[in-house]
C-alpha cells in the first residue's frame, strides 16, 4: 500500500492512495497563496496601480519592467494571477480510478487533474460539495475573466533570473508548475465526472474496496472517507470540526479500528479560538460602525460567512446597528445564500428541525427580507445606486488580488475610520495587504477556523485508536512562530508518519487475509469436525477462481470421460489429480498418558528428557527415540518397521483426525 503526496499544503491536500489494485485520489486542493505574488486586478481603472514603476535590478543588469512592478516597496508580477497546482509528475494521473472529495475547498484543482491528463475515472462528492464547489469555481473564473490580462509573465520564472529577484518572489517554489485559472468549460467538463454520494453510502470500487463518506462537521456536505476491504480499513480525515456550527455534526465512531488514518485539514490557527474570534469580529465591526466608518470583510462566498451572518443577526439588535446596511457582493452571492437553505439534510439537527416549520434554517433569510442584508453579483449595476455608507461589505476574494474586494480596498483604504476584518485563515493578512500600503484604514485579523485543533484531535485519536497515523510534516512540530508551544503538535505513540510534497510513503501494514467465497455445493460436501468448542475445521479441495477482485472456491471438475473429442483432450491434458488426502492431525500428546500406554504395550524402559520444545523419549531396550514437540512428533527407529508402526499408532490415538 502506497501513498503519493502531491500537495504539501496541510489544509489543501491532494494525495493518491494505491490500495488493493485501486488508485484513489484523496482530495484535489488548489494552493492559491501563490496569487499573493501578483498585482491586484482592479475592477475599475486605478490610476495608482496603472502607474507603478517597472522593476529593474539595482545594477541595471536585469530589466523585467514589463513583467514585474514595484508597489509599496515590494515587487509583484503583473499578469493574470496563477495558482500552484498539485504535483503532476509523481505518477501518471491517467491511472487514477477515483477521486474522493471531502469538502468544497478541497476540490478547486479538479479541472487541472481531470482535464487534459487522460483521466477517465469517477469523482465522488456529496451534493452540497458539488454545488457549492461549482459556485466557488464559477466565482473564481468570473473574477479572472472580468479583468482579462493578455500578458502572461514567464521570464521571471527562469531559475537564473528568479534567484536575483527580491523578497518573496525569490523564495517562491515550483514556479514552473504555476498555472493560470481554468475556464468555465473546463469546470463544467470536470464537474460532469462527479457522481453524488450520501453520508454512509457504500460505493464498491471494482469489488476490491468499498469507499464511504462520513459527516465531518466542517462545512455543508463536508466528509471524511472510509476506504476499506474486508480486512483492512483506511480512514481519511480531512477538514473536520467538533464545534456546533451549521453543518451536521462529525461522525467519529465510524473512524474506529482503522489500520491507517490519514490526517489532514487541521485548524490553521491553533491559538485562535473561533468563539473568541467571532466576538472580536463583532466588537470591531460595531466599534467601526459607531464611529461612522465602513467595514470590509474579504471572504469566500460560502462557509464561515453563514455563521458570520447568523452571529451578526443576533448581534446587530443588541449593538444598535439596526439601520446599518450589510452588503454581500459576489457573482454567486444569490445562489450561495439560497443553496444554503435547501440542503436541509446536510445541516445540524437544530437547523434541520426548522425545515419543518415555516422558517428558513438560516436567519440570513430574515436579514434579506427585512432589507438589512442585500446581495449583488458585482459592484456594477444596482449596487452603485443603492450603496449607502457607513456599511458592512462581505466580498471576495480573501487574497485581495482579484474580485470586488480590490475596489473597496482602493476606495476605503485611505480613511482611518474604516476597518478591514480578515476572517479567512488561508492568507497571511500582511501579505494580502502588501500592495495597498501605506494604508490608513484599520486592519483586524480575526481568522475563524473551525477545523479540529490539536487538543481535539489528540482526544479524537485516543478514542478511535488507529494503528498508524499519516499526516503532513507541519503537524509533527510546533509552529515556527511559537516554537515553545509543544502542545501545538501531534504527539502520538507510535509517532505519526509525516509527509511532504512529493513524498511516496509505504504504509506500514501488510495485507494478511482475503475473503474467499465457497460455492454452495462445495460447502455441502464439507465435513467439519470440532477441534475446540466453537471452532470446527474441515479440509477442502477446490479450484480457486479470482475475478473482479472476488475469490471463489469451486468444486474440482470431475475428470472428463475419456476422450469425448480430440480437441478437448488437448486442453485437459493434465487433469487435476484427485487423490484421497491423508487425514490432518491436531492436538497434543499428553506425556503421562502416553507413557502409561507404552507400558501397557510392554515398553517399560523409557528415559524422558525435557527439551526446549517438548520431550524426547528414549526407549532404551528398543534403541528408539520419540521426539514429542509442539508442532511435530518424530519417531527415530532404525530397521524396525513394525515397532515404528506400533508406536505411530499409539501416538495417533492421542490425536484428532480430520
Amino acid at each position: 500500500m502506497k501513498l503519493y503526496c502531491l500537495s504539501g499544503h496541510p489544509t489543501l491536500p491532494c494525495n493518491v492512495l494505491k490500495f488493493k489494485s485501486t488508485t484513489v485520489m484523496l482530495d484535489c486542493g488548489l494552493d492559491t497563496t501563490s496569487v499573493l505574488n501578483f498585482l491586484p486586478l482592479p475592477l475599475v481603472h486605478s490610476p495608482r496601480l496603472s502607474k507603478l514603476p517597472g522593476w529593474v535590478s539595482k545594477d541595471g543588469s536585469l530589466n523585467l519592467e514589463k513583467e514585474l512592478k514595484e508597489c509599496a516597496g515590494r515587487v509583484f508580477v503583473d499578469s493574470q494571477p496563477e495558482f500552484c497546482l498539485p504535483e503532476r509528475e509523481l505518477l501518471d494521473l491517467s491511472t487514477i480510478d477515483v477521486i474522493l472529495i471531502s469538502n468544497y475547498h478541497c476540490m478547486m484543482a479538479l479541472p487541472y487533474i481531470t482535464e487534459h491528463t487522460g483521466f477517465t475515472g469517477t469523482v465522488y462528492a456529496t451534493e452540497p460539495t458539488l454545488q457549492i464547489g461549482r459556485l466557488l469555481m464559477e466565482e473564481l473564473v468570473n473574477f479572472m475573466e472580468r479583468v482579462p490580462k493578455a500578458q502572461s509573465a514567464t521570464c521571471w520564472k527562469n531559475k537564473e533570473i528568479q534567484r536575483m529577484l527580491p523578497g518573496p518572489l525569490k523564495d517562491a517554489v515550483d514556479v514552473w508548475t504555476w498555472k493560470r485559472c481554468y475556464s468555465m468549460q473546463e469546470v463544467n467538463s470536470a464537474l460532469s465526472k462527479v457522481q453524488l454520494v450520501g453520508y454512509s453510502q457504500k460505493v464498491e470500487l471494482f469489488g476490491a474496496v468499498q469507499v464511504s463518506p462520513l459527516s465531518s462537521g466542517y462545512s455543508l456536505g463536508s466528509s471524511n472517507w472510509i476506504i476499506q476491504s474486508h480486512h483492512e480499513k483506511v480512514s481519511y480525515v480531512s477538514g473536520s470540526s467538533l464545534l456546533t456550527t451549521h453543518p451536521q455534526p462529525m461522525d467519529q465512531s465510524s473512524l474506529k479500528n482503522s489500520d491507517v488514518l490519514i490526517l489532514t485539514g487541521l485548524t490553521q490557527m491553533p491559538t485562535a479560538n473561533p468563539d473568541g474570534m467571532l466576538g472580536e469580529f463583532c466588537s470591531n465591526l460595531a466599534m467601526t460602525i459607531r464611529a461612522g466608518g465602513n467595514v470590509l470583510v474579504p471572504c469566500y462566498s460560502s462557509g464561515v460567512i453563514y455563521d458570520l451572518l447568523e452571529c451578526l443577526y443576533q448581534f446587530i439588535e443588541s449593538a444598535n446597528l439596526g439601520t446599518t446596511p450589510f452588503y454581500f457582493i459576489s457573482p454567486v452571492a444569490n445562489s450561495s445564500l439560497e443553496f444554503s437553505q435547501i440542503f436541509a439534510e446536510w445541516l445540524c439537527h437544530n437547523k434541520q428541525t426548522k425545515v419543518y416549520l415555516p422558517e428558513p434554517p438560516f436567519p440570513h433569510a430574515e436579514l434579506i427580507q427585512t432589507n438589512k442584508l442585500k446581495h449583488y453579483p458585482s459592484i456594477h449595476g444596482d449596487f452603485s445606486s443603492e450603496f449607502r455608507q457607513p456599511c458592512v461589505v462581505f466580498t471576495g476574494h480573501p487574497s485581495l488580488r482579484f474580485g470586488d474586494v480590490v475596489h473597496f480596498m482602493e476606495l476605503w483604504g485611505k480613511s482611518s475610520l474604516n476597518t478591514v476584518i480578515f476572517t479567512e485563515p488561508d492568507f497571511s493578512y500582511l501579505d494580502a495587504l502588501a500592495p495597498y500600503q501605506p494604508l490608513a484604514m484599520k486592519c483586524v485579523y480575526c481568522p475563524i477556523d473551525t477545523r479540529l485543533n490539536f487538543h481535539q484531535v489528540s482526544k479524537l485519536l485516543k478514542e478511535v485508536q488507529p494503528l498508524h497515523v499519516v499526516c503532513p510534516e507541519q503537524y509533527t512540530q510546533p509552529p515556527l512562530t511559537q516554537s515553545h508551544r509543544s502542545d501545538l503538535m501531534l504527539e502520538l505513540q507510535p509517532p505519526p508518519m509525516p509527509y511532504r510534497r512529493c513524498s511516496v510513503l509505504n504504509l506500514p501494514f501488510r495485507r494478511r487475509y482475503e475473503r474467499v467465497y465457497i460455492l454452495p455445493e462445495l460447502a455441502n460436501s464439507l465435513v467439519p469436525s470440532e477441534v475446540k468448542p466453537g471452532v470446527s475445521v474441515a479440509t477442502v479441495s477446490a479450484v480457486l477462481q479470482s475475478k473482479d477482485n472476488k475469490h471463489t472456491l469451486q468444486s474440482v471438475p470431475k475428470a472428463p470421460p475419456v476422450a469425448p473429442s480430440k480437441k478437448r483432450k488437448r486442453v485437459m491434458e493434465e487433469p487435476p489429480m484427485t487423490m484421497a488426502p491423508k487425514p490432518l492431525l491436531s492436538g497434543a500428546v499428553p506425556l503421562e498418558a502416553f507413557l502409561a500406554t507404552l507400558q501397557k504395550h510392554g515398553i517399560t524402559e523409557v528415559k524422558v528428557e525435557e527439551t526446549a520444545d517438548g520431550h524426547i523419549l528414549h526407549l532404551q531396550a528398543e534403541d528408539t527415540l520419540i521426539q514429542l514437540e509442539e508442532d511435530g512428533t518424530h519417531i527415530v527407529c532404525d530397521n524396525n518397521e513394525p515397532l515404528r508402526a506400533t508406536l505411530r499408532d499409539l501416538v495417533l490415538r492421542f490425536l484428532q483426525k480430520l
Partner: protein
Amino acid sequence: MDSQCVSILPRVCGVLLVSGSSLPDDTSLEKLLDWFTTVAQTGPSLLEACPCLVDFVSKVAFNYASGSSILSFTLKLTGLIGASEDGFKVLKECSVLKLVFNPQHWQEAGLWEDPCLRIGWIQGLKMILQHSEALSFFAQADLIEPLLQLQTDPSLFVASAANQTLAQVLLLCQSLSSVGHNGSKNRDLEHNSVSMETTQNYSGIITKVSEYLNKSVVLKEISQLPGSQQILRLLAMLLVRVGPPLRDTLLLAVMNSLEELVTTSCSQLTVPLLDVILAANSGLRDDCVPKQRLIRLLWAMLNMKKPDDVMQAAAAVLRSHQSDPALSAHSARVLLLPLDIVTGVSLLDENSTEGELRILITEQLKRKSCISMICVCLSNIPQITLMASDRLPCPQRLIVTAVLLLLRLCCVDSSSSSPGCVEVVRFITGNSKVQKCALEALLVLSKSPGVKMVLVEVFKVLTEYLNSPSSDPSVLQKSYQVVIKWVGVCPDLSCITDQLREGFIQAVRKRACDTRWEARDSTVEFLGHLVEVPSCWTFTEQETEPLDVLLGGRRFTVPLLKEALQDPESYVRASSISALAQTLAPSWQDGTALTQEQEDIVAQLQEVLFQDSEGFARRAAVKYFTAWFSACSSPSSCWLLMQSMPTVLSQGVADLDWEVKLHTLELAELLLDRAFPDPSPSHSYAVMSDQDHRLPIAGQQSDLLSSLKNLVDWGVVSALLCGVVDCDRPVALKACQLLLKLRGIVCPVMDNAADTRVFCQLAGASVLQQVRKIQEIGKDTHVVSEACSEADEEGICASVDPECVGVCEVLRLLDLDEKLSILTQSSDHIYNSPLSLLQDILTAAAASSPPGQDSRQELVMDCY
C-alpha cells in the same frame, strides 16, 4: 415574660410528655429551647419564671418512653436549668441530675445509639458547665470518660459538639483554678476545703485529657484518618482558647506525639497539623523550650518530600505571621520557587538549600496539577510583600517582573517564551484561573516600593489582556481593577506614550462593543471608577487626571457611556448610569454650566425610569439624581435638576421595585434635609414630640412656609404620602420616618398659624383612598373637603380638587407613631412570638391525639 405563656406552659409540658404526640414542625423544640434560653438570659431565673419545668424534666427522665427528640430536648433543657447555681441545686435535690447525665442510664435503655440523644447529652452538659458545682458533679460522676469517647464519634455533629464541650470543661477548670488561687484568702475554711477538693478534680480531668490527646494524636493506621483529623482540630482549638499554664501542660503532653506525626508526613493531615503547631506557637515566648521544639517541627514540615504539602506549610507559616525570621524567610522562598522556575526570573539565588525541592517542584510543574501549585504561589504573594524588605529573598521589583512575565506566558496571543520551564506553558496558556491569580498578585504588588518604573510594562501587559480575544470576562474585569490600582498609586503618568494610550483606547472601545455583556459591564464600570482615581502631578507640576491621560478625558467616555444606556442587558444599562454619575460628579461639584449632552442624558434617564423593564436600571437612574443632588453645591440654582425632581419622585415612588421606591425616598430625604437644614445634628430618625419642640420664633413661620411649599412643589410630600401606604414594609417605614421628621419640624410652628395652609396633590387614586382610610381610622375629620373648601376661599385651589390634601392636617391626623411602631416590627413578629409557638404545639397535639376528632385531623392534613 408574658403571663399568658406562663399560664399555658404546663399544658404544653403535658403535651410534650405524652409520647408520640405530634409537633407542628421539626423546629418547634429548638424554638422552644431558644425561648427558654432568652428567658434565662434576660429574666431572673428560668425556674422562677417556669417552675413547671423541673417536674417536666424529672418525668421525662424517669420515663424514657418519650421520643428521642423529646429526650434530647429534655437533656438540653436540664443543662439550661442547671446552668444557674440555684437551678442546679433544685435539680440535684430531686436527683434528676445524676440520672439524666448518666450515659449508663441511656445505654441500658438502648437509646445511646441514637445520635440525637448523644448530642442532647453533650449540649446539656456543655450548658450546665458554668460553675464549680457543676464541675464537681462532672468530676465525681466521672463524665470525662464518656465525653472523651465521644470526641471521635462517627456522627460529625456529635464529635464537633463533644470537642466544644471538652474545651468548655478545660476552660472552666482553668477559670475556677485561677479563682481558687487568687481568691482563696478571702474565703472561709470550709469553702477552701471544697476548692481543694475541686482542684484535685481539675488536675484529674486535665491529666485524663492530656493522656487522651497524646494517645490519639498518633496515626496508627490509615483508617483512623478522620479521627486523627478530628483530634488535631480539637487540639488546635484548645491551644487557641486555653491560657498559659494549662496550654503548656497540654502542649508538653502531646509534643512527642506531634513530632512522631510530622515524620509520618501524611498529606491529609498537613493542614490540621500545621494549624495545631501554629496555634501552639502563636502564644509562646521565644525562649521557652517547647517553642524551640515547635520551630523544629515547622522546619521539618517545610522539608517534607511532597511539594504540595511543603507549599501548604509555607503558606500557613507566612499567614500566621509568626516571629521566627529564618522560618518566614524560608517559607517565602519556598512559595516563590514555582514562579522562579516557570518564568526563569531568578528570584532566588542558586546556591540556596532548596535544591531538592526545586527538582521536585520542577517535576510537578510538568503535570497538569501545576495550575494549583502556581495559584498557591501567586495567592501568597500579598503575604510575602508584607515581609520586611531585608527578609525578602529578592527585591519586590523582581517579583513584579516575574509576575508580568507569567502573565505574558498565560496570554494566548502572546508569543513570548520563557527561559524557565517550557513544559508548563501548555497548561497555563489561556488558563483564566492562573491569569486571575496573577492579576490579583499584580494588584497587590502595586504598593511595592520602587515598582513605579515598571508601570509601562504593566500597562502593556494589561492592554494585551484587554485586547486579547480569548480573555475571559472575569479576567477583563480583573485587568481593569489592576489598571485602576496602578494608575492610582503612580504619581507620574507621563510615561504613558501616545502610542500606548492609543492601544489602550482601542482596547477599551472594543470591549465596550463586546458580545459578552459581562465584558461590556466591566468596561462601563471601569470608565466610572477611573474618574474617581485622584489626580496626579507630572514632572512639570501640571495636575493631570488619569482619565485624561489614559483615555483622553470625558470627550471619550461620555459618548461610550451614552451608547451603553441603550444596551440590551439591564446590568450594563445600570452600570452605565452609575458611571455617568461618577463621570459628571466633578462638573456638578464645580457648578459648571449644563451642556446639551447633560440635558440629553437627563431625558434618557427619565425614559429609563418610565420605560425600562428591569429594576437595576431604574434603581441606578434614581441614584443618579441622588448623586447629582448631593454633589451639587447649590441645587436650587440648577434648573434642570430641580425641574426633574417632581417627575423622578412621583415616578420612583410608584415603581414596582421596592428598592427603586426606597432609593426615591432617600432622594426625598435629601431634599427634606436641604429644605430644613437641621441646626442641631440629631439622629435622623429621632421622633420629636409636639410638646418638647421649641416655640415658634417670629419669622420662622414664613421661612418654614416657603420651604414647605418648595417641598410640595418638588413632589417630596406627595412621594412620602404615597410611600407611607406602600405595601413594602421597608418603603412604608422609611416614608413614615421621614413624615415624622417633617411633622416634627413643621407642625409645632404651623399649628398656630391657621392662615398658612399648604396643599399637596396625591398622585394615584388608590393612594388617596388609602390616605383617607388612614384618616378615617385616625380621627373623624374630613381633611380633604375642608382643605379644598378653604383653598377655594383663599383662591389657592381654583377648582375643587379631590386629590388635594392639606399637608399639616394630614401629618397631624395620620397616626404616624402607631404606624411606625407597627412597621418597625418584622412582618412575621406575630407568628414568631413564644405564645404563638406554644399555641401551635397545643393545637397540633389536639389535632392529632384526642379520639373522636378524626374529621378535624383530616381537615388539618388537607389544609397542610
